[in-house]
C-alpha cells in the first residue's frame, strides 16, 4: 500500500479531481495548505505598503492505494496539474503499513 501526497496549485484542483475520477479512484482527502518551495514567497508593494506573501496557498491531495496503481495515478496528477511554471507543486509517494476501515475492520486492499 502506498500513499500519494500531491501539493498542487489551487485552481488545478478541479482538473486533477476530474482526471482521478476518470481512473475510477474512489476517495481522496483534500486540504487547504500553505507553504513554499523553490517558488518562495514574494513581496508585493501596494501604495507604498509592503505585502509579504511568504507562504503561498496550495491544495494538498492525499490518496492511499495499492502499490501497483501508483505510477498511473502519479502520471495522471502530473499531467493535470502541470502549467509548466514554477510553483506547480510536488508529488510525494510514501509507504503505508496498514489500512483499516473503521466500520467493518477490513484491512489493506479491502479497506481502500
Amino acid at each position, binding site marked *: 500500500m502506498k500513499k500519494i501526497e500531491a501539493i498542487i*496549485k*489551487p*485552481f488545478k484542483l*478541479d482538473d486533477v479531481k476530474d482526471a482521478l475520477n476518470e481512473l475510477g479512484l474512489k476517495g481522496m482527502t483534500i486540504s*487547504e*495548505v*500553505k507553504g513554499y518551495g523553490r517558488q518562495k514567497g*514574494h*513581496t*508585493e*508593494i*501596494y*501604495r*507604498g*505598503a509592503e*505585502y509579504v*506573501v511568504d*507562504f*503561498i*496557498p496550495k491544495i494538498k491531495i492525499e490518496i492511499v492505494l495499492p502499490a501497483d496503481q501508483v505510477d498511473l495515478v502519479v502520471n495522471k496528477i502530473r499531467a493535470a496539474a502541470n*502549467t*509548466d*511554471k*514554477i*510553483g506547480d507543486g510536488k508529488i510525494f509517494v510514501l509507504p503505508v503499513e496498514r489500512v483499516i476501515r473503521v466500520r467493518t475492520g477490513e484491512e489493506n486492499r479491502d479497506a481502500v
Partner: protein
Amino acid sequence: MTVHLRTERDALEKLWEQGLSGRSLLLHHSRLVDEFIAGCFAGAAKNLPPETVALVALGGYGRRELFPYSDIDLMLLYHPDFRDGVKGIADAVLYPLWDSGMEVGHGVRTVEESLLQAGEDYFFLVSMLDARLVAGSAGLFGNLLLRFRDEYIEGRRDVFVEKMKEHRRRRRKRYGHHSYLLEPHIKEGKGGLRDIQAMVWTAKVVFGLSAIEDIFDAGLLSPEEQKEFTASWDMLIRLRNRLHYVSRRKNDQLYLEQQVEMAEAFGYTGNDAVLAVENFMRDVYRQLRVVAVTTDLFFDHVDEVLGLAGKGPLSVPDKEIEKGVEIRLGSIHLVLPPQQLEARPHVLMRLFLAAARTGLPLHHRTQKVVMANLALITDKIRISPRMSKAFLALLIEAESIFPVLETMLETGMLQAYIPEFSRIVTLAQHDVYHIYTVDRHSLQTVAELRIVAAEQDTVYRQIVLPQILYLAALLHDIGKGSGRDHSLEGAGIALNVGRRLGLSSAECDLLSFLVRYHLFIPENALRRDLNDAAFIQRCAETIGDIERLAMLYLLSIADSRATGPSAWSDWKATLMQEMFLRIFPYLDFSAGQTREQVEIVRHEEQGADWLRDQVEDLLAGEARPLINLASLSSDYILSFAPEKVAGHIRLHRDNYRLLRQKSLVLAQDLGDLWEILVLSSDRPGLLAKICGVVTLNNLAVVKAQIFTWDDGTVVDVLDVRPVDGLRFAEKDWQAMNADLDAAISHRLDLGHRLLKKLASGHGRRYDRGGRISPRVIIDNDSSDVYSVVEIHSADLPGMLYRITQTLADFGMNIRRAYIATEVERLIDVFYVLDAKGQKIIDAGFQREVVHGLLYALGLKEA
C-alpha cells in the same frame, strides 16, 4: 399501572398522527400524566393523615405544557412531622413513573427546604412560578405559595428581573453561536419557547399576571401583535411536538437532515427558485423573529416600569437632537404628535440616523410607533432626497451599524423604504455554507465591511464614494430567491433602488456593477491561474478602474466573512489578496509601471514566452511576418491579448510600405470607450502629433500605450472618449487618418489649428481651470528603467498636445503615457528617457524640463 401510561402515550401519538397538535396535545399529555400520578398517589395514600403530603408539578409540567418527550418535573412536598412516611409515597409514585420510560426530575422537600432551595438555585426559583398542585394537601401547597411570594417576590422584583435578563443574555449568546443559526434551537434559541416563558414569568412577578392571556388583556400587545405572536407561538409548539416524535427523544434543535421531512410534513412546497425546505425554514425564522421582537420590547417595557432603564454604564444626558427626536434615559425617542408625523414622515428615518450617530437604541415605544406608521412611507416619500440623505448618512456614519440596521429590519422600516428588501427577509438557503438568512447576512456584510475598511485602510482610501460601497453591501444578495443568477438579477434591482434614492447615473452604474460582480474576485481567485497575465489583464478590463477594484475587493472580504466560518479562511484571504495585488498595477494610471510592476513582469517572463507561442500559433499558415516575434518585448506582449498582437503583426505585414511613410489609424467601438490603434514609423514628436490630431477631431484621450518595435515601427493604442457627442459610426475616421498623415509629413500646423479651435469656443465648457495650479514632478525612483514625469494640471483641451510637444522638444522618448482625469483635474504620467536613452538625472536638466512644462501649461512666471 406502568403499562397503562405507556399505552396512553402510544395512543396520544396516534392522535398526533391524526392531526392533534399544538397546545391541545400538550394539555392532553399533561392530563394523562396527572391522572396517572394521581392514581398512583391515591393507592398509596389511603391511610395518610390529612395535610401531610402534596404532589406539586413544576416547570413546563406545572404549566401543562408537556411535550412528547419532556421531563416530568415533580416535587413531593411533605409536612416535617411526616418525614418517616414520605418514603413510601415517593416509592409508590416515582417507581411507576420511571418504569413508564419517562424522564423524571424529582425532589422531596418540606416547605422550609423548598424555600431554602429557591434561594440557592435560581432555576428552581423560576420553576416554582409554575407550581401546580396535582394531588394531596391543598393547605400545604397554599402555605408554600404564600411563603414563596413573601420571601422571593414582594420587594425583590428588580433583583428577579435583573437575573432573568442576565440568563436571557447568556442564553442568547450561547444559542446565538453560529452552529445554531443553520439548525435553530426551538426552545433555547433567540425567539424560542424559552423567550416566551421568560416573558410570562416576568409578567407574573412584576405585574402579577398569571398567563399569556392576561398579558394580552393588560394591553401590553396590540391586537395585531397578539395575533401574530399567538400564531408564531403555535407554530413553534407544533414544531417541537414533531421534533420530539421524529427524533424519539427530547430533541429541541432543528437539525439540517430533519428540515426536509419537516417541511414536507408541514405541507410546504417548492419551485424552481426556492426549495420546499427553504420556504419552510423561512417561516421558522420568521416565527422566531416575531417572538424575539415581541419579547425584547416587553423587557424594555419592564425596565421602564421598574425604573431600570437608562441606568447602564453608558448613561447619556437627556437632550433634543432635532425637532421630534430626543434622547431620554439613554434611548432615542420620537416626540411628535401623530398629525405632525404625518406631515413630516422623513422624521422616521431621522430617528435611525440619530440612533446611528449616538449609538443609542430606539426606545421600544418609539419602535412601536415606527411599526404603526410604516404606511407613511409612500412612493413619494421613497424618492424624497431628505430620506435618502439620512439613509446614506447613517450607513457611513454609524459607530456601530449592525444594531441600527437590525432595528430597521425588525420594525419593518428597511422593507418599507426599500420594498425590494422584503424578497430576502428570513430567506434561508438549504446548505451548510450559508449559515445566516439572506437578510441577516446582508446586514452582517455591511457590519463586516466597516471592520474590513478599518483593517485595509490603504485600500479603503482609494474610495471616493463609500456610501455606494455600503449600499452595495446591503443590496449585494437582493437578487436571491429569484431562481435566476442572483448577481445579474440583483444588478437590475440595485439599479432601480439607486435611481429611486436619487443617485447620479454614474453612482447607479457603480452600484449595479458592484452587485453584478460581487462574486468575481472570490470565484476567480480560487479557480484561475493568477500568474496568467492575459487573464489578469482581462480582469482589469472587466473591472475598469482602481476605485471599482478597491470596492470589489473590500466587498468580497466582507461578504465572505459574513457568510459563515466555512466561507472564510486565511488561505482564501491570501488568494484574494494576491488577485487584488495582481490586477492593481494594470489599473494604476497614476503610478503606471512602478517597481512592483517590473517585479511582476519579471515573474511573468515565462508567461510572455507562452503568449509569444500563442501568437505564433495564431499566425501559423499565413504569410511570414515581417518582424521577428522573439524581438517583441515582454512588456508589449503582456499588454495585449495574443489575438491583438497577431492583428498588429498582420497589419504591419500587409501595410509594410505604407507604414514607412504614412500612418494607419484604426478605431474600434468598445462601448464606453473607443480604442484607436495607430501604426506608423518612429519619428520625433510623433505622440504629440497624434495627440494633437485626436484633439482636433474632438476626442479626449484617457489612456495611451506606446510601443516601439525593434524595426522602428510604432504601435500606439489610445483609449478615447468623444467630446462632441457624436456616435462612433458618425465619426470620420478616414479624415482623421488623413490629418495625421499630413501632420507627420509636416503639412499641418497643429499648434495653430488647435489655438484657432480653442478660440472659436470649442471645448469652452471644459474651461473650468484656473483654480488648479499646475505641478510637475520628475520621479526617478518608481521605475528601474525610466524617469517618470508626473504632471498635474487643469483639464483643458489641447493640453496633452502641448505637454507631449514640449517633451518632444527636449528630445524625450516617451515610452508610455497614462492620462487620468479626476474631476476637472488632469493627471498625466509619462515614462520617458532622454535623447540618449538615459534617465533624467542631471539636476539642471531636470529644472529645465520642469520649467519648460510649466510654461507649456500656462504658468508664465515659473
